């Protein structure tokens, strides 16, 4: 029983990291219409930065914040490459983000080598309802919960958040009222980088990260984001938590090598269901 509970809590922590990756995808897609395949890269860059900064003796807190900001800068640079030129279609921007992800491999290998790196997180563990849970797991869960609340408040309540939403809702109308949709898109990419960076910094103490970890991250994050139709944050969060728990359970009960297949299988299932549902609606309205 307590094994089950600790798998569940660990799974939730992993799911939270996935959710942060996915929420970055959703923010960027909502504002720009671009599916950003470099989203995992932001997490890798931030995770590797955190491990280096801590290795250089910088204190906790400062290192993590700097690493998350590095993720945001990576996001902004990706945005400049993907949508910096006026009139780039979302599809060509998507291809650019794939290119950025591959280019990032080269940069990361030059800077950090190709071996996985870890970073110390919060040490120790606490016992909740008879289950031991690592403090770092708890930290991941709390930070993610706080981040999702902040994102919801930002997009739902602030003027800037509404202007960002306006760009997605009707880009032409956004330009009619004078909103610079390109700059808003870049801002969305920076926020996406921030969220990806947060995921990377939180997960590096749990799972060593290397240049190609972005594949696992983006597959999982994309699966969760697709679950929320790339627009709905709450459903995305639920999808991410389910994925995290399912994968941790699979690993815990001895199917550890099949984690990625679990994510891919679920993603394809969701896509097929959604595609068929969408075509039904389409047939009804035509």
């Amino acid at each position, binding site marked *: 029983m307590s094994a089950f509970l600790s798998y569940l809590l660990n799974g939730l922590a992993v799911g939270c990291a996935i959710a942060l990756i996915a929420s970055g995808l959703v923010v960027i897609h909502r504002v720009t219409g671009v599916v950003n395949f470099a989203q995992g890269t932001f997490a890798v860059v931030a995770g590797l930065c955190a491990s280096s900064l801590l290795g250089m003796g910088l204190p906790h807190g400062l290192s993590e914040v700097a690493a998350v900001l590095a993720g945001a800068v990576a996001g902004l640079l990706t945005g400049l490459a993907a949508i910096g030129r006026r009139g780039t279609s979302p599809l060509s921007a998507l291809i650019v983000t794939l290119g950025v992800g591959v280019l990032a491999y080269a940069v990361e290998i030059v800077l950090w080598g190709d071996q996985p790196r870890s970073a110390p997180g919060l040490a120790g563990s606490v016992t909740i309802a008879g289950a031991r849970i690592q403090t770092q797991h708890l930290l991941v869960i709390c930070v993610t919960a706080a981040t999702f609340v902040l994102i919801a408040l930002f997009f739902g309540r602030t*003027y800037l958040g*509404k*202007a960002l*939403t*306006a760009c997605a*809702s*009707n880009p*032409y*109308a*956004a*330009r*009619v*009222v*004078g*909103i610079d949709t390109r700059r808003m898109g870049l801002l969305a990419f920076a926020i996406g980088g921030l969220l990806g960076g947060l995921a990377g910094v939180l997960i590096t103490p749990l799972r060593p990260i290397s240049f190609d970890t972005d594949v696992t991250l983006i597959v999982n994050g994309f699966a969760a984001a697709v679950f929320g139709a790339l627009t709905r944050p709450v459903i995305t969060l639920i999808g991410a938590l389910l994925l995290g728990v399912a994968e941790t359970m699979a690993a815990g009960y001895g199917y550890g090598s099949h984690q990625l297949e679990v994510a891919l299988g679920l993603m394809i299932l969701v896509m097929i269901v959604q595609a068929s549902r969408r075509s039904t609606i389409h047939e009804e309205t035509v």
Partner: protein
Amino acid sequence: MIDVTDLVVSYGTATALDHVTLSVRQGEMVALLGPNGAGKSTLANTLAGILAPVSGTVRIGGRLALIPEGRQLFPDMSVADNLALGGWRSGQRDPSAVYELLPRLAELAGRRAGVLSGGEQQMVAFGRAMMARPEALVVDELSLGLAPTVTADLAAHLAELNREHGLTVLLIEQNARLAFELCHRAYVLESGRLVAEGESAELAEDPRVASAYLGGAIT
């Protein structure tokens, strides 16, 4: 207030505006008529800075707002949020001045813009443009798809703003009768070129204009 000289605008290789020259003086209310595809909306979008000219110049002597063709609201947002976003450029966030002008909008404030009727949506688009505190207003098809009484109501507001606040208006219309009634001067655009201009009274007498835009002259 609005000075357009020798303006050429194209979409790829297709020329939508071909050396157009027109002007609207401060406080004037001028109509722009023309059949579908004449380039009226292209001109409106160029004046609003959304489209860039290939050649020629556009000079705007003050803050300009556009009521775009087909309202173009943010459908999932409330009326209040739509209005607030209209103040993006001017920095005006509080819609109370617009509620005073269009009291109906205050009643609709909490409703989602996408579920409103066509007339209500056009009123939101009107209010959203006024949030920019414009000195010049371009209206792209005020009457499109609206009942005559709704159009008359909006037109009255427009005329009042022009008369009492000196708002400069360029009114793009398919309904020439309405346009001639509201505006003392008009331009006629066809296939990207200006083909006629003058006082509304004169144009209404012009047999070509009458047959094309006033439902056929008797001759």
